[in-house]
């Protein structure tokens, strides 16, 4: 772990309201969708402040945030904040974890992991394990290319304002799945 006083990357989850409720779910997911947000910190910035005030480096709808959280811990991430956010008039809530990732490579691994995970409809422990192992062992060069591609696509596609931008970005993860023969 690099100097913990000066972490480079941090991530958090935010629930954003869906345009119309998704009836497949009955809890918070019925009305909201979780987004994962990654932030880059400058020297001396405090993660909690940055999350409040600045634009994320990349943010996209994430699925299986429990696994994303677990993987962050596995990468040496540190949970520095956890607020319970109540959703008005619905009686539901969620935990907003703020996690600081120890270094850039961890951030990239995590980004690629959450991207891939978000393309699954169903995810169990065994699949999570195999994906985790692939991510942990992935060559840093490939990792750099793939994650940079995702960030670039995010920046290009977001400004177009098309509602399908996320699908185009998630293609990076789908390519990864093809590459590693994951189904």
């Amino acid at each position, binding site marked *: 772990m690099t100097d913990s006083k000066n972490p480079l990357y941090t991530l958090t989850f935010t629930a954003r309201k869906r345009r119309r409720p998704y009836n*497949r*779910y*009955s809890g918070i*997911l019925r009305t909201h969708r979780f987004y994962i947000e990654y932030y880059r910190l400058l020297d001396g910035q405090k993660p909690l402040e940055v999350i409040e005030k600045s634009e994320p480096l990349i943010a996209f709808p994430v699925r*299986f945030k*429990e696994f994303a959280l677990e993987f962050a811990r596995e990468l040496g991430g540190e949970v520095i904040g956890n607020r319970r956010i109540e959703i008005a008039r619905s009686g539901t809530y969620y935990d907003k974890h703020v996690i600081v990732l120890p270094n850039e490579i961890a951030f990239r691994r995590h980004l690629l992991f959450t991207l891939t995970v978000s393309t699954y409809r169903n995810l169990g*422990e*065994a699949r*999570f394990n195999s994906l985790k192992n692939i991510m942990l062992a992935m060559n840093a060069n490939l990792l750099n290319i793939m994650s940079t591609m995702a960030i670039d696509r995010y920046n290009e596609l977001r400004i177009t304002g098309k509602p399908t931008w996320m699908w185009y970005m998630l293609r990076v993860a789908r390519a990864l799945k093809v590459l590693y023969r994951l189904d």
Partner: protein
Amino acid sequence: MPDIRSLDVRDEIMNLSYEPAVNLGDVVKGSAPGFIGDPVEFFGRTHVTDSMKSLVIKAFMNLLGIKSVTVSGKQYNVSSSLILLPSDLGGGKTHSLILLYHIFKLVNQSGEKDDAVSKLEILDKDIAELVSRYWEKIKSIAPKIVVADCRYSDLAPGPARPIRIAGREIKTLWGYLGYELGKYEVVEKADSMGTAPYVDDLLAVLDGSRAIVLIDEIGRYYDMSGLEPTKVSVFLMNLAEALSKYTVREVAVVISVPYDVEEKRVEAGAGMEYIHKPELVRAINKVLNRPNVEIVKPVRRFDLAEILQKRIFRASNTELDQFATEFISRELSREYPVQVRKVLDDRGFWREVRKTYPFHPMFLNVLEKLSYGLGYLQKTRDAIKIAVQTVLALKEGLFDALEDEISLVMPYHIPIFVSETLDETILRNAPNEYLVFNLILKNNVVIPHNFTKLKKLGKEGFYKEVIARELRNLKEDEMKLGVKLASIIWLHSLIGLGLPMNIGDYPTTIDLIYSVSPTDQDVKGVLNILRSILPQLIIHGEPDSDTTRWFFTRIPSIDDLIDILKKNVTDEMAKDKLAEFLEWGLLGKKGRGRPPKEWRKGSTVFSSSVVVKSVRSVPGEVSGLRDPVLVVFADIVPGDELLGLLKGRNNLIALAPSVIGVSEMDQLAPEDIAGIRELAGLEGKSVWDGLLEILRYYIATEHISEANLKSFVGDIVGKGEEEYLKDLLELLKNKVDSKKDYFYKNTWNMINRSYRRVYYHRLGRVFSEEGVSLESDKPIPVIVEEFLRDKKLIPEEFKGTNIESIVKNYLNKDPKKDPIGIGELWTFILSTDKAKVPLVAYKDFINAVKDLIKSMDYAVRIDGEVLWKPIFKSEVEAETTDEGSKLVGLIAEYLRRLGKSWDDVQLVYWENVFDEWLNKVTSSIPDNKVLKIKDRSGRILDIRDVKFSLKDTIKSGKLFYEEKKYPVEIKLNIPEEMLEGKEYVINAEITVKNFDEEFNVKLIPDNGLSVEPREFKGRSPLSVGFKIRAEKAGDYQVAVKVHSGDFNLDSRVISIPVKGEWIEKTLVIGDKGESVDDDARVVAIIGEEINHLAEISRVAKSFPGSITGKLTLSGEAGVLSLNIDTDNADLLELTEGHINSIRNSLKMKTADVYIEYAPSGELRIRDITSVFVNPKGLKVKFKVKAGGSS
């Protein structure tokens, strides 16, 4: 047919003095045991093989000088007076020489021909016949017998040990021959100088000497005589040359050679080169290169059966034949499995066993392979020894534990569990590389014990102490067969030294089946069990193929490797692997890859299922699902965490090995421990521990790589043996695969044992149901669903009535009064902890809702809009289409258009919204259409004309529109109230669209109603007026027929209610006066005091109406004035509630009150009297029927 154990054996076998290593010298000197030294006894025990017979006959021919003879149809030719008997140790040479010695001695000593012939007949009829034929000639020759047994100095002298006779010192074999044949002087010089004799000298000695010369153990003479080997060799060469001369007569020389002859070249057998010098091989080669040397191999392989029969059993050939016949006829009448029957027939067992009885053909085969294949054993001698020990072991009852009835000596009867047999026979003199087989034997087959201990063991003891550990846990039948098969495989492996390159030495599956046949057991099945449990058993080929070869190898067992690797496997890895197993299980398929199509059949209730290790990692995407979800835990779960997960989620079902605080964990059953070797150390532990242990083994096996195997066998295989290494690796890989299969199977076994309970949340706590049983090849959700159906948690079917009963019983609402919100009801089912609600899929729930809707008992309200009976486009459609489905279709369409879901739907009992609905329907009838109803009895009515029991008629009928060609519209102005006995004028306007001609209107009133005039004529629009009068109050109808000539344009019915006349009166409550009829209708209530406010507001709250009036309060603090004009009783109540505070604040002195309440509907006096508390001074205006109907 007797049991083998009851067959008599010869005495010397019983007392173990049969010592088959007979010695020619002993016989000559008379020191041999009786059964060898006595010719008759000896003949009885000798099976004369074809080659022995030919040896005897040829010796006679040489002596008699006959070159060709025919004995019992077979012609014998002899080409040389020198006969060589080549064979390895124990091949029967010495026996043959003794036989020759006995025959010639018998012939010499017998005075009577018959006496000699009868004795020879015991031996062999052909020999007896030959002797009888040439008796005279033989007697005239009176053959001398010269025996040179090189083991003894007095029978084969050398310079080291000369013989001194009559002043002579005989120092060589040739000197001895010369002396014995009375021609010593010919070879005297060569003898005394120790040089080899010349050919002509030898010829002179031997030619015409009328002698039979038997030379045994010539090999030893090289080493012991003290002569230079070359000299002995030259002697042999010269001897051969001399005797192969055509002219040589009346002499027969027989020399035994301790080597096997193949194509006239001697080969030093394995192990033999250590005993004899290479010179010997060379010399004998030279001798054999002479063209005219007779070579007779005394014993050939196929003679073994007869030799053993004669040597061991007392029964004669004919008796054995009879027993064999009995055996065959009995066995042939039995039923055998196809595999056994086929092998027996293919191998010609029934023909074969007749010859070999009481030995199984495979017994002889194994015996032969042992004695020929194991270089350190003596062929005939050790074969006999093993056979004798086998028979003795049988007779001693050592096999009683394995078999009840022994009708053949089987290959597995070779008593390898008797340590004496093993040490003294099978492994005696064995080189070091064979000793490892002792270990293999102990680990895979049997544990050897000494004879005395074995005798004491008994059946149970035998199972416990003799049979190898791996085999003990099998079922008794399988264990017995397993031991037999393993014994046979072990013996063969010993021959091939367990090396893959000797693959030909090992038995095939078919061989093995044959070796234990006839048997009614499933041999292949047991072999497959052996394959997975015996650590060092290896197969070469496909496991199920008939030609696969089976053997034990001397490489260390794979189990050891697995044990080593297992140490590195952590619990976490085991749990990960378990998760993987369970995830396969969710799909219900074996191994990785896409499941076959038929497995796609999933559960109908569970929309999703997931495997997780802890509650924390259950994804929100799963726990938040609306439909039932199955969560499978790959670990033990703490009870409070599980409660946290399941609380408020009645649709979550958890499957876990154990939940702390909710259920106890099962202990490993003894049969688990007995059935799975790897669990032996886990007695008293839980099944969960057992599962993890097996998983660790599975992971270790899975992790075995080629590199592992290479380094593992690297120590055994030296350099330059790549071919061998490759073979070995191939075999080991197969072994690893079979191990993996074994662990896979047992993992599922243990998963089945561990996952017995299903957990769910109801009534505020975690419930569990026990008894679910997982299988490897059926999807887990399907299994759990079936299980929960059995337990009634998932209802057999979920119908509309189920919804009604949930509302009634759990929500305590009356569905006939209160509306049912579908979304709320679903949320209730999902999250209540007040009721034991069933587990249903949302789809099924909605289907039940649709079911309710289809019954037409409930109307649907969506966003204020009421949907009920559908209106069909035509009568035909109404007849053919189901009303319910049509309505459901309409609702779905409506929801789609609004972008709403079924959750937004409200069910309302039809009676509650009937009026609202009817209003809507009637107001939306298009101009050009008539809304008609086809009632239960099939009558078709215009809906406007249904006046009586309207609700029921409509509920039970079907509605449809009918097109009007000439829509008739009648506008009437009927007074709001019509009273009896009064005349009213009604104006009407009648319009007929699309009709320009004149038409008639006819009014037909009910009895009691008079209408004037009744007929009109005109064109559209037609305005008419008519008078109407009824003498009595009642509901009247007037039929209106609009027609043009005979053509009926439209028929309608007008309803006219006629009331009695009312008289308005006023009364002040509290005053005395006339009594008021209860049925009187209240017109207004007027309050003029402050405390009347409360009374009026109470009435107004119960019966809606308008409130008007004024309120002025004046006091010291000022004046408050209030104008009231409202329909809302609450306002009055509010005012009234604060009136006291206002009075106090104002310090009120006077109050001026006038409040009037007028009910909006009809209100009877009797209704309000119950509401009043203190009505004194209230003025009530009311009306009564003029006639005073009371």
